């Protein structure tokens, strides 16, 4: 045995947000085990909100205390909670709180958007009974907390192994959450299986990539990898294979084009609050991780990966936009729009430097709020069978509920990138960074795909306002307090970031640095 183990110094001030979330999730499991059923939902909701709020306070406290290169790393450099990491953690927590409000909604239909017992056979007598009466499973709260905690770790991982564990920690709860829809349960379960299988493949690719990079650099932490790339005269083949495989794993999570096929099915099948959570938070976490890998670990191979990732960005934007045009289901439409948005984000990342990073951070927040608000609205438009997401059902909605139709119109215009919305500011920032980084060709394709993408949005708007409402036009439910809050926050932030984006832009500019 011989030498003793020198236990690493853990900087708890930096780790508190994760500790709180993991701890609260464990308490949530205890709540499931011991609190009577009638109380569980309230207890879990309050517990989760408090935990996320406390974690956010801890993030803000640390940001206020100041992050320097000296105190960024902790746990023997395995975790790097630097400025960009802290910004991403804060953004994830805020977006997580807003989507948790949607997850907690129980007034729109009996028992909320989640199935009471997922193990009951679909379509059986017991299933009909539980669909009509029983209140939804409350395990969704600890699962969401675990997912969020994993995301916080993912965006601050300074080591490929840490990153892999974090990737699994935030993916696994999401696979489970996808399978828990109250309505259209078979679709939901199919979505979960697809997401799980493809996600497992992507994780395997990521792990293979880690092994290859280890073969090249003899290390898995970003600092050593960077040092090795800068100084080594070894052939780059292993490194390139490794980076390609890492990129496959990460691009799967951000839904970039050759790896996007799961997106529409999963977004459509998952319960809508979970879809909102995935669209906002998973995207932010995955882009945070991708940016850290590219900016911190593989910096010098810049000239190598930019053209390849650039092609992927172009494909992502174009395929997402073109396929969005052909969709007839609103959830699928938003899914393809999120694919296209992943392309715009990639353009920002490839812009490089602090400008690229800050534009990506800003875009993630802006897009996250808008997409959560859009999905919140989707949960409101419903008929006897649950949410009416088919495009034709929305015809004439503007006549029936002008207020909600206006809000949705505003959100669609934000997605299309019209001025005075956050979408415009965000796209402007991203394209500006890309031009600054000498990637003008990406911007050309970006503008082209934005024009294509405006078409499906406008079609929805035209359908809502210019068609006559028919017998089958569903009504818009009156949202409960939680959905109203989420919707309001989402719309207000979308408006605010369009009108007065400077404070968040400053914040993002200030945060746009990784510590190596």
């Amino acid at each position, binding site marked *: *045995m*011989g030498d*003793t*183990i020198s*236990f690493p110094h853990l900087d708890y001030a930096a780790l508190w947000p994760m500790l709180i979330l993991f701890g609260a999730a464990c308490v949530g*499991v*205890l709540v*499931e*085990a*011991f609190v009577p059923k009638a109380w569980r939902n309230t207890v879990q909701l309050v517990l989760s909100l408090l935990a996320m709020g406390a974690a956010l306070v801890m993030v803000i406290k640390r940001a206020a205390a100041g992050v320097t290169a000296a105190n960024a790393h902790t746990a023997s450099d395995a975790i790097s909670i630097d400025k960009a990491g802290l910004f991403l953690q804060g953004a994830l927590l805020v977006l997580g709180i807003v989507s948790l409000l949607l997850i907690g909604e129980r007034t729109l239909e009996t028992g909320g958007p989640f199935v009471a017992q997922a193990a009951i056979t679909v379509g059986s007598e017991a299933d009909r009974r539980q669909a009509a009466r029983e209140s939804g499973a409350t395990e969704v709260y600890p699962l969401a907390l675990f997912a969020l905690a994993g995301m916080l770790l993912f965006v601050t991982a300074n080591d490929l192994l840490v990153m892999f564990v974090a990737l699994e920690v935030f993916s696994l709860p999401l696979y489970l959450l996808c399978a828990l829809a109250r309505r259209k349960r078979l679709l939901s379960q199919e979505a979960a299986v697809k997401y799980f299988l493809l996600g497992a493949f992507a994780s395997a690719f990521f792990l293979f990539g880690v092994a290859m990079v280890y073969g090249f650099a003899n290390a898995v932490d970003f600092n050593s990898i960077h040092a090795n790339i800068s100084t080594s005269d070894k052939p780059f083949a292993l490194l390139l294979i490794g980076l390609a495989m890492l990129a496959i794993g990460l691009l799967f999570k951000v839904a970039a084009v050759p790896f996007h096929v799961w997106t529409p099915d999963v977004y459509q099948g998952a319960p809508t609050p979970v879809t909102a959570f995935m669209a906002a938070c998973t995207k932010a976490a995955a882009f945070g991780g991708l940016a850290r890998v590219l900016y911190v670990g593989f910096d010098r191979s810049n000239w190598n990966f930019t053209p390849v990732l650039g092609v992927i960005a172009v494909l992502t934007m174009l395929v997402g936009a073109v396929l969005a045009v052909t969709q007839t289901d609103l959830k699928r439409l938003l899914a393809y729009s999120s694919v296209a948005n992943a392309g715009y984000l990639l353009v920002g990342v490839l812009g490089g430097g602090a400008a690229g990073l800050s534009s990506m951070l800003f875009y993630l927040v802006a897009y996250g709020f808008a997409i959560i608000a859009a999905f919140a609205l989707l949960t409101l438009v419903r008929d006897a069978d649950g949410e009416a997401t088919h495009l034709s059902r929305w015809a004439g909605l503007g006549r029936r509920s002008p207020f909600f139709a206006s809000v949705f119109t505003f959100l669609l215009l934000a997605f299309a990138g019209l001025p005075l919305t956050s979408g415009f500011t965000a796209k402007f920032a991203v394209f500006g960074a890309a031009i600054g980084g000498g990637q003008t060709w990406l911007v050309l394709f970006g503008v082209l795909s934005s024009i294509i993408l405006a078409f499906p949005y406008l079609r929805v708007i035209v359908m809502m306002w210019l068609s006559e409402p028919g017998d089958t036009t569903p009504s818009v439910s009156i949202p409960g307090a939680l959905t109203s809050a989420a919707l309001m926050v989402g719309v207000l932030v979308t408006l605010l970031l369009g009108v007065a984006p400077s404070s968040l832009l400053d914040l993002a500019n200030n945060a746009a640095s990784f510590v190596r």
Partner: protein
Amino acid sequence: MDGYLGPYATVGLLLLVGVLIIGGAFTANRLLRPSRPNAADGKFDTYECGLDPVEGGWAQVHIRYYIYAYLYVLFAVEAVFLFPWAVVYLAGGAKVIAEMAVFVAVLALGLLYAWRKQALRWL
């Protein structure tokens, strides 16, 4: 029998000896016993017992088994982490012991959950 693979060679040798002993016993049996096969009519018929051999021999098992198997996997993974811990906890001191305690406690929480959900009751 020394060197890195030495202990494995010992195990392999033991395995070989075991195979030889059992194989030898059966061979000796075969050589020494009298052999008078009697293929009387109906000797190999199914008679008055057992189910009718129709279709395949496959029965679907209850999903309960799956949960048990799954819990077993979880605790197998936990055990995998316990092995390296067992060789260093003396060197690592209280903090390493505490870390493992937290790890095991979190997993025990899972077991507690399963118990309260009555997943461990067979009926």
